[in-house]
């Protein structure tokens, strides 16, 4: 066998904020022309390992060898220059710049002095080579999530790295975009790049990788070729054989709690993102609003929740017209929402875990804050929802993506609203958390009405009572969930508005 491109030897890393061991003696080899998949639950150390490779985090001990030379990255810049690139989990692009300007930002700094005109040609060639088509002169703000991810990939590829890491790339994008992404990854392999693909979705891992590595609590517990293992074995390894299926169906009552009537919502730069959408939801019911991300779902949630201007139409809550009311008024009435943007809007990065979790009970509690009572209830909530954390006073930014998600769900459900809007409730959750969240939601719907916005139809089908599909700002499909309704059937409607499948 040939020599590995990157050898990782006995890496250890402990975070001083939480004291948790994120990496515990990880040893791993990456080979050219091979796709290695890293599997693991939330907070298993997948992201930390990649951060160490990219020099974002420093390991406590251990070493790395890249192309036969000792490799000690001082930061992502250094890694880029050596020939390692990463497409991060949360997309980091500059909204106000154009696509090409964003690409220039990611250009390797030791590159030759090139003219813009020439550079444009290079980028065009690159796009052709990988079938990545992007409008170069459009502002990034106008791109969909999938396109932004392509931009990130292009930004990494232009430096022609030898090792490319994709950190949970499939959580944000639609199925069609996923197919395209997999094609790109296969193409990269055929060109002899070493690709690392991080995910917690078993099926994906199985479909594209050559080698599968399973991390648990910072340790490599499994590492083998895909052909020498099976989905069953991996499932066993990851989740200890636990698997529960849900079949809790409640009779829905007739009380209509939220009615959205012919609502149009303003999008970015004077466009109409949502065009006359109507929906209705009753207590004891979960309504899923699905469709390819970026077709107006986010804007619809924002519009209902008073964070975006409604151009026309009405929102009726318990028989009262609440169109255009602001979040603090809506929350008082009993409407809560989990916003799509976890990092900037749904949580406050500079605040502690406790403050983020208890922001309602603190801001609606007694005039003098009752510290002890709040610390107790925070601990209980975090425990109930299975959030792994260090100290309750740590900044919320110390939590991993999946744990933050659980914390936010805990917050929104625990304030017992009458109607709960959820933006991508399943994003970033591993199978175990996913099951527990689904259980929580089916439990919660006895007391409230839930409208979930999610591009993930497969998961939606498991707990939804009704499904609504939005394409290009319009409802193209609406139906009760009944046996026999399958995800592929529904996906046909995803591009309904453009392909005339109505």
């Amino acid at each position: 066998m040939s020599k590995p491109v990157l050898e990782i030897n006995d890496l250890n890393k402990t975070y001083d904020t939480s004291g948790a061991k994120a990496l515990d003696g990880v040893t791993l080899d990456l080979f050219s022309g091979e796709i290695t998949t890293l599997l693991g639950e939330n907070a298993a150390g997948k992201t930390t390992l990649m951060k160490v490779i990219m020099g974002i985090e420093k390991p406590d001990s251990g070493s790395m060898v890249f192309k036969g030379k000792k490799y000690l990255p001082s930061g992502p810049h250094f890694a880029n220059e050596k020939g390692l690139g990463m497409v991060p989990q949360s997309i980091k692009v500059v909204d106000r710049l154009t696509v090409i300007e964003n690409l220039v930002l990611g250009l390797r700094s030791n590159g030759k002095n090139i003219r813009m005109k020439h550079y444009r040609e290079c980028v065009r060639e690159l796009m052709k080579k990988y079938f990545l088509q992007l409008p170069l002169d459009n502002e990034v703000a106008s791109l969909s999530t999938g396109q932004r991810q392509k931009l990130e990939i292009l930004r990494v590829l232009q430096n022609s790295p030898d090792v490319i890491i994709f950190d949970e790339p499939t959580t944000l994008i639609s199925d069609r975009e996923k197919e395209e992404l997999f094609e790109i990854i296969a193409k990269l392999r055929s060109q002899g790049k070493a690709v690392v693909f991080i995910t917690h979705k078993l099926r994906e891992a199985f479909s594209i990788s050559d080698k599968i590595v399973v991390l648990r609590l910072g340790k490599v517990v499994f590492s083998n070729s895909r052909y020498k293992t099976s989905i069953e074995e991996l499932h066993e390894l990851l989740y200890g054989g636990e698997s529960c299926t849900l079949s809790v169906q409640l009779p829905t009552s007739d009380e209509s709690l939220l009615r959205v009537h012919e609502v149009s919502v303003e999008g970015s730069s004077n466009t109409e993102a949502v065009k006359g959408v109507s929906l209705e939801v009753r207590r004891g019911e979960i309504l899923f609003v699905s469709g390819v991300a970026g077709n107006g779902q986010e804007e619809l949630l924002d519009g209902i929740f008073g964070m975006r201007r409604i151009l026309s139409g009405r929102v009726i809550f318990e028989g009262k017209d609440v169109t255009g009311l602001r979040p603090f008024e809506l929350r008082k009435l009993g409407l809560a929402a989990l916003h799509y943007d976890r990092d900037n809007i749904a949580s406050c990065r500079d605040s502690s875990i406790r403050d983020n979790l208890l922001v309602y009970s603190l801001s609606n509690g007694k005039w003098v804050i009752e510290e002890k009572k709040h610390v107790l209830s925070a601990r209980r909530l975090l425990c109930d929802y299975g959030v792994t954390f260090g100290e309750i006073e740590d900044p919320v930014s110390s939590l991993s993506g999946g744990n933050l998600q659980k914390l936010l769900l805990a917050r929104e459900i625990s304030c017992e609203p009458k109607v709960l809007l959820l933006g991508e409730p399943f994003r970033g959750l591993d199978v175990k958390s996913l099951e527990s969240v689904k259980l929580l939601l089916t439990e919660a719907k006895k007391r409230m009405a839930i409208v979930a916005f999610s591009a993930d139809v497969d998961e939606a089908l498991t707990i939804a009572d009704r499904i609504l599909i939005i394409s290009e700002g319009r409802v193209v499909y609406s139906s009760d969930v009944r046996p026999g309704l399958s995800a592929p059937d529904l996906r046909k409607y995803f591009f309904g508005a453009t392909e005339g499948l109505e």
Partner: protein
Amino acid sequence: MISKLHNLGRSLMVVGISLIVGLLLVILMSDDPGDAAKAFFLSVFSNRFYFGNLLAHSIPLMLTGLAASVAFAASCFNLGMEGQVYLGALAGTSAGIFLSDLVPGAIGIALMFTVSFFFGASLASISAILKIRTGVSELISSLLLSNGIVLAVDYFVEGPLNDKASGLAASISLPAEFRFSGLMMPSSLHTGIFFSLFTAFLLWFFLFKTREGFKIRIVGKSRTFAFYTGLNTDKLLFWAMFLSGGLASTAGMIDVVGIHGRVMRGFSSGYGWNGIAIALIARNHPLLIIPAAIFFAYLESGAQIASLEANITPEFARIVQAVIFFLVTAEALVPKHLGRKRYA
């Protein structure tokens, strides 16, 4: 906990560096560096007169520092504190003159402070309302309003309220029972210092232990998060500015009641501006405002004493203060977590 200690360390470092720069400047600018340095840095502690004056000078600075920190806590910028100091002093003093012989001393003082608080608070509220209703930056509106108000106060001090008999650019004096009693005679230290200390404690309690203070801090940390999470951000911004303006004007009132007994033209010598620097050094923590204000007063007193005892001009203190201001604002140059590598 680590980060708290860390912040404190960083504040101390800023203070330390600025003292060293000050010392270097003294050595460069004086013919007799040894003497001048001693006069500048040590003479303050040599007798009760100097030391009392130092503390007296810190009294209004604490209040403007607190005023700035409330606004900063909500991510608002109240640049109009200088005007609020003057307006507060004038309004409170006018009330005092009007009330003389009508009410006993303690009640008179309390009423004067209340009047002064509401005048300053209303002035700051104008900026807050402009921001909420029309989106005008409070930075600009408060600064412009303040500059105008200072001139208007000058007019009252030189015109309708002028103490003609004295021939000074000052208002009529307050009656003796409407004054704080002195401490550490013959320095100008007065019992108003307890008011400042108590206010610092009160503000700390408000910001960190009460519901409304919590809301203000959340708004300051992330306005979109606060809005989404169901806080009335407009209302909170208004109250933060209101409180800030009120506190700033009590700084003017306390100097009148404690030291001068009347409003004098230009008495503030930049309390409003220094309050901003103090809040920055103290990182908006109300209790840390106390040492920060004393440190600022120490520099100013040191410069004054040095100009008396050694051949250094009082302007010199301004240079050292400017250096501190500069170092504090250049805080970005110091890595956020010194000695502990942390990446986003």
